């Protein structure tokens, strides 16, 4: 993947933004390489698919390029960046006229397996990856059923490990209210997980009833013929 020099940690985020405001493309490139993964992760968990998330990722950094000069240092650069990313995701979600098509759990498991395989953090045991992926898929599907705000809060706090103070600045929700909102979001997430599990069990039972041998319809047809 990208060379570690792309991150260039010798230069601060603030310095990179100043250079971006002066039209330095190299500075934006370094800034992008440094932050693309966490920002993409947030966008993916908000938008639920790679295509939208990649377009949104590009949008976020184009916005950074255009408004770098407006950054006054009142908050951390990452707070500002997450704020831009969250707004971009929200705009995209609102621009979707119809609700995003629900993805089947099987497809989500495959997507999560792909994510686990693509994870550059180290070796992944294939069997464990599959079990983990099933759990991740259920959780991801449940997250996708949450409201926009719940999804943002859960992602920022639990997946991105952003603190209460920073989330408060990103979302504009007071820190004390934030804890209550997070708790409620987790309860709703748990409810969605239980609902999904029930739906999946019902589907399996239905499949077992229609195909007693567990064969695919076409295979059953072929044997019947």
């Amino acid at each position, binding site marked *: 993947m990208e060379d570690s020099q792309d991150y260039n940690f010798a230069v601060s985020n603030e310095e990179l933004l100043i250079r971006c405001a002066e039209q330095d493309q190299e500075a934006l490139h370094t800034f992008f390489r440094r932050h693309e993964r966490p920002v993409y992760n947030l966008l993916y968990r908000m938008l639920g698919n*790679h295509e939208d998330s990649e377009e949104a990722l590009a949008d976020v950094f184009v916005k950074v390029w255009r408004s770098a000069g407006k950054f006054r240092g009142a908050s951390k650069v990452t707070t500002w960046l997450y704020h831009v990313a969250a707004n971009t995701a929200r705009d995209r979600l609102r621009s979707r006229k119809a609700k995003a098509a629900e993805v089947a759990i099987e497809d989500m498991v495959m997507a999560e397996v792909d994510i686990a395989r693509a994870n550059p953090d180290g070796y992944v045991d294939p069997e464990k990856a599959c079990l983990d992926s099933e759990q991740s898929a259920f959780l*991801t599907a449940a997250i996708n059923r949450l409201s926009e705000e719940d999804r943002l809060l859960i992602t920022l706090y639990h997946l991105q490990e952003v603190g209460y103070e920073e989330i408060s600045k990103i979302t504009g929700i007071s820190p004390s209210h934030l804890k209550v909102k997070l708790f409620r979001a987790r309860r709703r997430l748990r409810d969605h997980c239980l609902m999904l599990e029930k739906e999946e069990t019902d589907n399996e039972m239905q499949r077992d009833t229609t195909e007693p041998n567990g064969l695919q319809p076409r295979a059953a047809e072929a044997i019947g013929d």
Partner: protein
Amino acid sequence: MDYSLGRLKPSETKSIEGHLKRCEDCRLVLEEERVLCRQLGELPMVSPANDVWALIRSSIRPRSSVFNLLRTRVAKLVAVTAVTAIVAVTLVNVRFGEQGTVVDKETVQAVTAIMMQTDRNTTDDPLGSNRDAFVGVIDEGI
């Protein structure tokens, strides 16, 4: 959540533990919270499949040379002076217009030229050393 993570004060922790001993519902909620938080923490970090930088690079273009010229201090100074001149000419027109006098085009141009030379840092008298010339031109105009 803060209790699970051990972020509470000892007195608060003790109080919650006392309650948990008596309340089965809260013990259940706490256990569910712990499991959910652990599972959320285990969700993998997702990376983009394609290199998005190419898409970004095609969307950003350095601003035009005209824009860059406008960003320079000299250009800003000229712009400020020009705006001041326009405002002054307008005020002159309004003032003398009320008295039934029309300031002709040549006068306006002359005033504008003088204002362009005016030192913008002179705060006490906006016309500075050009006051006499300015008044002279206005007198001739009317």
